């Protein structure tokens, strides 16, 4: 089981998909202006990567080498479509808020990268651990970024319609730059700088 926990921990800190690998920045920058959207995106991401990693790892001996990339793409796209439909059916508000970025998960480099680099070469438990770790890392990064963006750009935190708290002055005059994609870059850069400063992540 130590192998499992090792692979699991790897994705959270050592090779965090957002802060260290700097992969799949498109959804990171686009949907982190509110915490709701970030949570929705994290969930979709986790579902897709876990399911596709699992399937690909299960079939890794069967998949012929020449067609492996098409097969990965089909598998990932299938799960993305399924997740999309699930979202549309059960959480339509988040589905419509995420818009095109949900479908764009099908071409997410991180998911395809993990499938190609890890799941197709490792046994099922390790692949599952990797997918879980990556999901948790991605989710943490998205939550962190969106927390600060929503706090500064909207002046308060609202999760699924429940107003958790609002800042006294900022609520009337939110720093709207943080709601724009420039703010996403700023927050992400500052968080990376902060993590490097305190030594949590190191240069790759």
């Amino acid at each position, binding site marked *: 089981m130590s192998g499992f926990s090792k692979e699991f921990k790897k994705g959270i800190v050592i090779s965090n998909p957002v802060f260290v690998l700097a992969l799949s920045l498109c959804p990171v920058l686009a949907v982190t202006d509110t915490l709701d959207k970030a949570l929705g995106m994290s969930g979709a991401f986790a579902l897709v990567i876990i399911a596709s990693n699992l399937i690909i790892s299960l079939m890794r001996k069967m998949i012929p080498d020449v067609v492996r990339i098409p097969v990965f793409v089909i598998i990932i796209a299938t799960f993305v479509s*399924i997740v999309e*439909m699930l979202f549309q059916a059960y959480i339509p*508000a988040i589905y*419509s808020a995420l818009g095109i970025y949900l479908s764009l998960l099908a071409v997410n480099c991180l998911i395809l990268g993990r499938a190609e680099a890890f799941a197709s070469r490792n046994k099922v438990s390790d692949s599952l651990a990797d997918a879980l770790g990556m999901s948790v890392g991605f989710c943490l990064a998205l939550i962190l970024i969106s927390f600060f963006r929503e706090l500064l750009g909207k002046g308060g935190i609202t999760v699924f319609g429940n107003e958790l708290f609002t800042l006294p002055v900022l609520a009337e005059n939110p720093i709207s730059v943080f709601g724009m994609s420039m703010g996403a870059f700023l927050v992400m850069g500052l968080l990376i700088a902060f993590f490097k400063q305190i030594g949590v992540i190191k240069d790759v």
Partner: protein
Amino acid sequence: MLDRFKKYYPLFFLVLVILASSALMMSAEKINRLVLESRQAPETLALLQQLFTEATFYTYRVDTEIYTLYDSRRHKLGYAMYGEGFGYRGKITVLAGLKDKETIHNIIVINQIEDISYWNMLKNNNFFAQFIGLKIEECYPSFAWLPGGVDAVSGSTISSRGVTNAVRDAILDKLEYLD
């Protein structure tokens, strides 16, 4: 025989995967549709079917208050939204249906308390039919008077204006939210 199979194995595999994923997606879609349809209130659907007869289900966005209608093959038919205006006696509520983002498909009046005589004048003079196929741009020019393609029924001008304003109210603020 075995060699030949090995040679074409990747192709077989690919086809297999495609078939499997199609099957998966079809079943997922079925669930999706079931869920979506189970969430619809039948009376609302019936109302909407007055606008779009072929509508089989709809989605409703709480934040923008827009109904999006689909037919049985999941093709988007159009949008519907409520609007209010004030006639001679009081509030007139209409449900306006948009065919696409530019044209009014049809309208139905949900609620009104106008005098029956006046209202019948509207009905008899085919007032409501004027909205069918009306371009949205023609609803913009003035808020107080009727849009370009609509003629008021003489003798019942205020009710005509109430209906028109209700339609305008339904459409104008929501155009930017149509997707």
